[in-house]
C-alpha cells in the first residue's frame, strides 16, 4: 500500500543498553572497570608500595628509615628465612606432583561412562574444596592425634606402629602435605575432567581400532591431549603452594617444621613489626615465583600442542 511521506518516516531507533554505556567499543571497559580498580587497589598498588619499603626499616609505629640493601643482606644470613623457604620447597615439590597425579587418576575414573552414581562421586570429591579451611584443619588435627586419633588407630589395626604426625618435626610436614592434597584434589580433578571431556571420543575409538590397549591409549592418546590441562594444573598448584599461608598458619608443627615462607613474612611484619624486612622477603619470594613461572611457561611451548 502506498504510504505518505509522513507515514514513511521511521521512528527513531531505540537506544540499546550497550549504547547507554558508550557503545560496543567503550562498554566492555566500563563493565570491567570496577573489578580492575579493585584489583589495582588491593593487589597491584600495595605490591608496588612494598618495593620501596623493602629498602627501609619501619615498625609501623615510627618513621621509616632508608637503609639501602641491609634488609636483603640480612635475608642471606637469616636461618629462619632459609628454613621456611626449604619447607616451602618440599611442600611444593612433593605436594604438587602427588596432588596433580592423584587428580588425574580420579578424573579418569569419574569420566568413565560405566561408573555408577557418577554425580554423587563428583560431589564427594569436590566437598573438601568448599569446606571451611579452619573447620577442616580442626578435624584433621584430631585425626592426627598420636594417642587418640583415627589414623593411628587404623595403622594399629594393620600392624603398623603409630606415627607422631603433627607432634614431631620429622612427620609434621608430611602430615600437612597429606591434608593439602586431600583439600585441593577435588578442584584439580574438576579441571582434568573438563579437559578429558574436551577430548573427542573418535580419537579413543581410532586407537581401539588400531589395537591399542588401555594403558597405550592413556599414554599415547589421552595424556598428550591433556598436556595443556596438566600444565594449567601444575602451574596453578605450584604458584598456590609457593604462596600458601592459611594451612601453615593453622596447622602448626613443632620447631617451625610446618612454617612456610609466607607465614614467616606475615609474622615478621605483624608480630615483630618489621615491615621493611618483611617487604624485602616478599620481594625475594616474588622473584622466585616469577622465575619458576617463567621456566614453566617456557617449558609449556615444548610440552603442549599449541
Amino acid at each position, binding site marked *: 500500500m502506498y504510504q505518505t511521506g509522513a507515514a514513511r518516516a521511521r521512528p527513531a531507533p531505540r537506544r540499546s543498553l550497550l549504547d547507554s554505556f558508550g557503545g560496543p567499543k567503550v562498554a566492555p571497559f566500563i563493565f570491567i572497570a570496577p573489578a580492575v580498580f579493585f584489583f589495582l587497589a588491593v593487589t597491584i598498588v600495595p605490591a608496588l608500595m612494598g618495593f620501596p619499603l623493602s629498602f627501609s*626499616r619501619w615498625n609501623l609505629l615510627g618513621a621509616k628509615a632508608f637503609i639501602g640493601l641491609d634488609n636483603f643482606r640480612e635475608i642471606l644470613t637469616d636461618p629462619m628465612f632459609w628454613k621456611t623457604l626449604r619447607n616451602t620447597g618440599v611442600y611444593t615439590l612433593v605436594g604438587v606432583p602427588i596432588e596433580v597425579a592423584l587428580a588425574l587418576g580420579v578424573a579418569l575414573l569419574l569420566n568413565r561412562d560405566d561408573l555408577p552414581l557418577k554425580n554423587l562421586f563428583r560431589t564427594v570429591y569436590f566437598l573438601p574444596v568448599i569446606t571451611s579451611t579452619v573447620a577442616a584443619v580442626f578435624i584433621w588435627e584430631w585425626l592426627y592425634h598420636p594417642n587418640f586419633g583415627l589414623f593411628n588407630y587404623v595403622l594399629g589395626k594393620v600392624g603398623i606402629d603409630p606415627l607422631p604426625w603433627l607432634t614431631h618435626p620429622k612427620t609434621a610436614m608430611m602430615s600437612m602435605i597429606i591434608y593439602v592434597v586431600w583439600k585441593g584434589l577435588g578442584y584439580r580433578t574438576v579441571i582434568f575432567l573438563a579437559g578429558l571431556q574436551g577430548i573427542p571420543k573418535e580419537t579413543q575409538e581410532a586407537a581401539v581400532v588400531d589395537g591399542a590397549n588401555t594403558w597405550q591409549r592413556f599414554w599415547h592418546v589421552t595424556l598428550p591431549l591433556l598436556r595443556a590441562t596438566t600444565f594449567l594444573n601444575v602451574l596453578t598448584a605450584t604458584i598456590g603452594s609457593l604462596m600458601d599461608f592459611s594451612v601453615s598458619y593453622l596447622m602448626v608443627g613443632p620447631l617451625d617444621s610446618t612454617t612456610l615462607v609466607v607465614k614467616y613474612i606475615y609474622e615478621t611484619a605483624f608480630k*615483630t613489626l618489621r615491615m621493611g624486612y618483611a617487604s624485602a622477603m616478599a620481594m625475594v619470594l616474588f622473584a622466585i615465583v616469577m622465575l619458576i613461572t617463567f621456566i614453566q611457561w617456557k617449558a609449556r611451548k615444548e610440552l603442549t600442542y599449541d
Partner: protein
Amino acid sequence: MCLAALLLTAALAGCGSTKKGEDKAPPGPAVDPNQKYTVVHWQHHSDARQKMVQQFAEAFMKEHSNITVQIESIPQADYWNKLVTTVASGQGPDVFQIPAGKAVEFIASGQVQPISQKVLAQDKVQKEFMASTLDPFSSQGKIYGLPTDVQTIILIYNKDLFKAAGLDPNVPPKNWDEVLSFAKKITKIGADGKMTVSGLGLGGYHPVVNTLMYQAGLKDTIDSKGNFAFAADAAALEAFKWYCDLTTVHKVYDPKFGSRWTGFRAGTVGMVFSHPAMMGNFKLTAPTVNWGVSEVPEYKGNRTNVVTSWGYVISKKANADVATMWMDYLTNEAAQKKWTAETGELPARTKLLDDADLTKDPNIKIAFESLKKAKPSRFTDPAYEPLIQKAWNMVLLEGKSPADALKWAEDQMNAEKKKKGM
C-alpha cells in the same frame, strides 16, 4: 592471656561507680564541661569484658554527659593487626589495650602519650598500683598506661586424680620435689606404652619457665645494659633442666599426649601451671572436673612467680585529659573489683589484694597471694614469646642439651632485640 568469665558472688560493687573521696581525680580544671568530646576505645574481645566495659561506659557517660565513649571490642586474632595498622595511619582509637611487653616500643615511637597530670597525679598512681604491673608502662619518670588483664602463675590440680593416686586431694604439692613425686604417682602408662594419664601437663610456656628460673634464684632475665642474659646463670639452667627432665627423664608428660588444657578438661591431666583466668574458664569448660588451686610450689623457700598484663594507653592524637578521665574510671577500685569478680583477671591495685569481699573465695585469695610475690616478665613481646617453647622442644624432640637450647633462646632474643633497634 585473658578471657573467660569467672562468676563469683553477686554482692559486688555497682557498675563502675567511683567511690566518693577515695579514687577521685585531684581537683582542678580537666575538661570543659560545656564542650563535647568523644573517646574511641578499643580492646581485644572477651564476652565478659565487653559486657562489663560497656556498662562502665554507660555509667561514665551518665556522669559526664558531654563525653561519648565508643567501645570497639575486636576478636583477639584480629586485634593486633588492626590496631598497629590503624595507629600507623593516624586513624586509630584514643584509648586502646596493648600487652605490657609492647609498651616500650609504643612509648619509644611516640605513638602514645603520658597520662594527664591534671586528671590523675602520677604519684597517686604509683602509690595505688602494684609496681610490677606499672613498671612496663613507665618511662623516664612518666606513666604512659594503666594496667589491666593482670595474670600470674598458679597451680591447678585435679582432686579426683590425686585421690586415685593415693594422695590427699586437699593437700597440693608444697615444693618442686613434691610436684615431681605427685606427678609420678598420678601418671599412668597403658599396656601399649601410651600415656593415659599425665601427672603434670606441660607446654614450654614462657611465664611458667620464667617462674621456675626466678624460684631457683635468677635475679633478672636482662643485664644492666638491657640485654637478655640468663643462659649462663646456674639457677636459670637448673630450673630449665628440671622442667625439661619432667618429660625426658621422669616421663610425667608426653608431647604425644596433646594439649594440656584439653587433657585437664578431659580429666586426664593431674596438674597444670596456669594463669588464674583459667579458673573461670574451667568452670565453664570443665564442669565435671573437681579441681583445686594452689600457689606455685616453692623452691629454696621461694614462691616468686611471673606477672604478665596488658594496659590501657592513650594515643598521641587523643585529648589526654578526657582519655585519662576515662582510663581512671575504667581502672578505679570499684571497677577493678568488678573486673576481677566477673573475668578472673587480677586487679592491679594494691589495696584490692586484701579486699574482704574478693578474698572470701579461697581460690581468688590464692591468686592474690601469687600476685604479691610476682615479678614482671621480660618475654612478653611477640618476638620473644615463642622462643622458650622452641628451646624446650629442641630438648624434647631434637635431643639438644638444656644448656645449648637455653643459650639458643637467649641469642635469638638478643638478635630480635637488635633487629628492632632497641
